[in-house]
């Protein structure tokens, strides 16, 4: 822009070109200067205020282009100082491809459309594939070497996965894929997409930003519950007084029916089925020790949280997710209630089985960690009527234990599990994402 303005001002002030080359030269230099100025101004505006930049075209000079320009400038000045037309010719033969490179990249970027195909939800740490479809709606030319750079934005960072489309012929589309593995739970905003190219000579890079927006929900990563967790759970069951459901003989649940084996109790034979199948079939019972579970998650961090505290809070959520999934998949009769204690507390009540698991995982993915102080509302949902157990996963076990140690019967049955690595490592193996 400055170059253009200088040219125009110099010519207006001195009339140098007009004197040298006449009115034609004067007009040509004014047109060139004005064009340079306007173009420069447009680039400045589009870089600082992208919303004014129309469809989002942008320009970048790669290092090769910079070197190329330096060589051109040297040759141009050399030709003027040395009065050398051959050198001026070499300069011109360098300028031509440079300008054409800029124009061709711009032409290729016109009428390009992008769409993205991704799963709606994934688990943190899982690698998944996103498909990008690039459509060239022009009648001419082929779009060559289009680098589609996607943006994946999360509250705590971002990623820029890329796909290179070697060529997309006119009125056709091509599909490309990139793989992504996201570490953090939460909502990710995908888009906009930046399509750039340097073809054919690589001297100028032009791009266009296309608004292709999508959302992706990433669930907390689940870990593995160790045998100690089972033992811990058994102990807790023994501690809790409960009423067994009268759902089968011997107070156990029907597990399966199977063929009779020698040694089976004859009383276990299911005669009706045996008659139907013409062989002896016995009912197999399994003692059910699954009980309703109330899970309270308190992933608290102090106002000036350290990384360690944040890790503990996230671990609490991962552990809670693992426990929830384990419970809903393995406990057929018992229900699950979850309270997430945070900025905006979440209360989730599912039935038996994992049919409502998605809503719980959505809540866990979007849950915002709190730094608010402890109060009774933490235990508002912990009344089990003696039918289940209450598990509280917290990052502040000492403070919570003081509350549960009180005379309140409601809180006395709450089992508190600390979320620190030390407290939890015996029961839970965190699947760390590398």
């Amino acid at each position: 822009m400055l170059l253009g303005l200088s040219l125009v001002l110099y010519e207006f002030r001195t009339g140098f070109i007009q004197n040298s080359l006449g009115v034609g030269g004067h007009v040509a230099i004014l047109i060139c200067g004005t064009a340079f100025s306007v173009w420069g101004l447009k680039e400045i505006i589009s870089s600082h205020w992208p919303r004014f930049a129309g469809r989002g075209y942008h320009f970048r000079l790669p290092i090769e282009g910079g070197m190329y320009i330096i060589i051109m400038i040297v040759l141009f000045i050399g030709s003027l100082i040395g009065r050398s037309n051959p050198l001026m010719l070499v300069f011109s033969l360098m300028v031509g491809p440079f300008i054409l490179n800029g124009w061709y990249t711009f032409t290729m970027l016109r009428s390009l459309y992008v769409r993205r195909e991704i799963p709606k939800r994934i688990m943190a740490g899982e690698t998944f594939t996103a498909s990008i479809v690039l459509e060239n709606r022009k009648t001419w030319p082929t779009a060559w070497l289009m680098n589609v750079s996607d943006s994946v934005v999360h509250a705590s960072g971002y990623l820029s996965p890329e796909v290179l489309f070697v060529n997309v012929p006119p009125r056709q589309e091509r599909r490309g894929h990139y793989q992504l593995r996201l570490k953090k739970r939460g909502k990710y905003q995908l888009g906009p997409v930046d399509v750039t190219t340097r073809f054919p000579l690589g001297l100028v890079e032009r791009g266009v930003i296309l608004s292709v927006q999508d959302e992706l929900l990433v669930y907390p990563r689940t870990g593995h519950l160790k045998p100690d967790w089972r033992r811990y759970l058994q102990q807790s069951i023994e501690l809790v007084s409960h009423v067994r459901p009268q759902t089968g003989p011997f107070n156990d649940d029907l597990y399966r029916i199977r063929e009779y084996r020698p040694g089976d109790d004859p009383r276990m034979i299911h005669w009706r089925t045996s008659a139907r199948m013409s062989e002896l079939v016995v009912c197999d019972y399994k003692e059910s020790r699954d009980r309703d579970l109330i899970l309270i998650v308190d992933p608290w961090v102090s106002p000036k949280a350290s990384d360690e505290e944040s890790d503990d809070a996230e671990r609490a959520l991962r552990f809670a997710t693992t426990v929830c999934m384990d419970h809903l998949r393995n406990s057929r009769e018992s229900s699950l209630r979850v309270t997430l204690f945070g900025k905006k507390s979440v209360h989730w009540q599912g039935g038996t089985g994992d049919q409502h698991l998605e809503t719980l995982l959505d809540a866990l993915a979007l849950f915002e960690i709190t730094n608010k102080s402890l109060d009774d509302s933490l235990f508002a949902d912990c009344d089990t009527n003696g039918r289940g157990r209450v598990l509280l996963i917290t990052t502040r076990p000492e403070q919570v234990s003081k509350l549960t140690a009180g005379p309140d019967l409601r809180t006395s049955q709450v089992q508190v599990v600390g979320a620190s690595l030390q407290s939890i490592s015996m029961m839970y193996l965190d699947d760390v994402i590398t």
Partner: protein
Amino acid sequence: MLQVLQISTTILVSFAGIIFASAEGAPLGAVSVLVALFSLFFIDWQKDFYVTTFVASILGFCAFIAAGIEFFNGEIESRLLSGGHLIVYLTWIFLVQKKENRHFWWLFALGMLQVAVSAVLTNALWYGAALVGYTFLACWTLSVFQLYRATNDHIASALLTNQPRLIVGSTRKGLSRDVDHNLLNFRFFSTTSFVYVLSFGMAMLFFLFTPRVWIGQYSIYGDSPVSGKALTGFTEEVRLGDMGEILENNATVATVELYHHQTGIRFTEREMLDYFGSEPLFRGSTQEIYELGNWSHFSQTNLPMTNYSETAKIRQQIELEPIGIRTLFGFGNIVALSTQSEQSINQQPYSKVFSRRGGRDSRSVFTYEVLSNPGKVDLEAALERLSWSVQQKWEFREYLNRLSRPRRSLSRISELSRNITRNSTTQSEIASQIEAYLRDSGEFSYSLKLDIQDASIDPVEDFLINRKQGHCEYFASAMALMLRGNGIPARLVTGFKGGVQNKDTLTLQQLHAHSWVEAYIDDHWQTFDPTPGERNDSVSSLEGPRSMYVNMKQGFLNYWNAGINMSPTQQKEMIYKPVEGVVSKVGTTLKEVFDGNLTSVKQYFEFLKSPRQWVSWQGGVFVFLVLLFVSGLVWSLKKISRLLMRNWKRQLKQQRTYQQVEFYNRFRKIMHTQGYSQKPAETAQEFVTASLKTLQTKFVEVDLEHWPEELVQKFYQVRFGNQPLSEQDAEQIQARLTKMESALLETK
């Protein structure tokens, strides 16, 4: 694809080396071909050997030292060559390394620089052709490089990589290519070719229109200022080598007719031949100051030409073509010059150089008259010198002193000159001896080749001692400097020798350009022409009828010379003024058309009626403009029709959705005032049913209990059943709506 890139780069580097070697006239640049081939076979393909970065750095350091020694030990041209040699050394160093992306890019840049240095060393036609080929090859190589780099980078970096700053995850880049497609297919080749052709066109426009606003007064070959403007063979500056291409050019420079001045009768063919002889010398400019291959003119006061027409016997009427110079030419013992043009004619007293001054530089022919008498060249001027004032005589003596002083740096020329003329006693004998040595001894031959053998010494020394072949500029320069070596004042004269005589008219062409020597001996300027007779044979061979190939070559040569020798004045005349003229003419025509005057338009139609004009450049421009106009028209029509169609569809949609169901819109507005708005997913029926749950009592009060349902049915009929409302129905609905509105407002 890597192999194609390697081969393309090898060819590109080799081509650049050959161009540089040809321009320099030395084999150093051509060695790049061997190094490039060695690199291709043994480093790129066999991978037997390569130079490490450390060794390459040492080699680079050595290259800088070698080039530095060459730079500080040589003269200006040698310094330039040292830069070129450094580029060649660096090219070799990059070639022998294991190649990564940056090496390919550096080889491209260094190749381009070699070609640029070559541009300074030569301006021959072959260079232009080589430049066209090189730029195509460069475009192709860069395109292949870009394709290779983009795809290769993606494959190389397509691993799951953690990005430290971006802690939210990791990515694997993707690459989309048609698996059954060869990347370097016809589509790629055609795209590259297309880009090249357009680039070339753009480059030519840039070359023609870039203002030749030369910075300062410096020549690329010297650090001394030059005072001239145009770079042609006849200006106030001569650079050895410039005239090479001009000597192959048969473009007309001037036509000469002779008249008896007293009677005005035209010379017959015989009289003309008698007066001119076989090889007339048309004197133009003189060059007095010599430095490192450059001759320049001694600056003198310009005096207005006075008319001595009474004393002159012969009148040479010369029509000078617009070749962008102000110098005027004349033959023989010139008395005076005159012209009927608005421009005046000046003369320089000591050099007797005539030039035109004032007025506008015209693209038309300049006609002037040279009045002369029979006799030797300096006869009239010698008489004039006798009448000079003391100051003029003193200045002239100083002028001569300057022309007789040999330069110290040219001691080898002076020594050679003295050796040749050691047996001669008079200045006249010395001059003849030197002329004979150069012209007749057989040691020197005439050639248009301009190769330099030893760039570290002066070009004339190189000519006299090493090369011993050249064209007239070299012979004349050598003689002038040799005369000065003997203390004889001498100057170089540029002009024309010979011409094509057609009956009583003599035509001078560019190929008749010539240089010779004037030496001041015995108080007279005497003319010496040391160029061997082969020059005349060469010129004669060019004058005759030619084959189509030669004509074509000549055509290219003319364009090449016009471009390569273009001065600011010529650019103004050849490029800017015609464009200005065309624009002005178009403007005038348009103005006339607007004023109702169709004369110009008729002229254009007349022009179109002539088939001869169809294949002229005007025809080409016309076709181009018509095609441009038609394409623009088609494009605009498509855009406009698309816009109109979109607009029409929008209006249609609006009509369907709003105008035809105006009554329903009014109903919705009334309901909106009561806080009931139709949701986007709600049908009209659902909306009415939902709102009636609470407003039913109000409707009952005003006796409109079931009317909303009826309204919805009417709406459906109009909106989807394509059954417009009757006038009676419309009035009834409007009345009920008003009733409903007032009832609800009262409630509110």
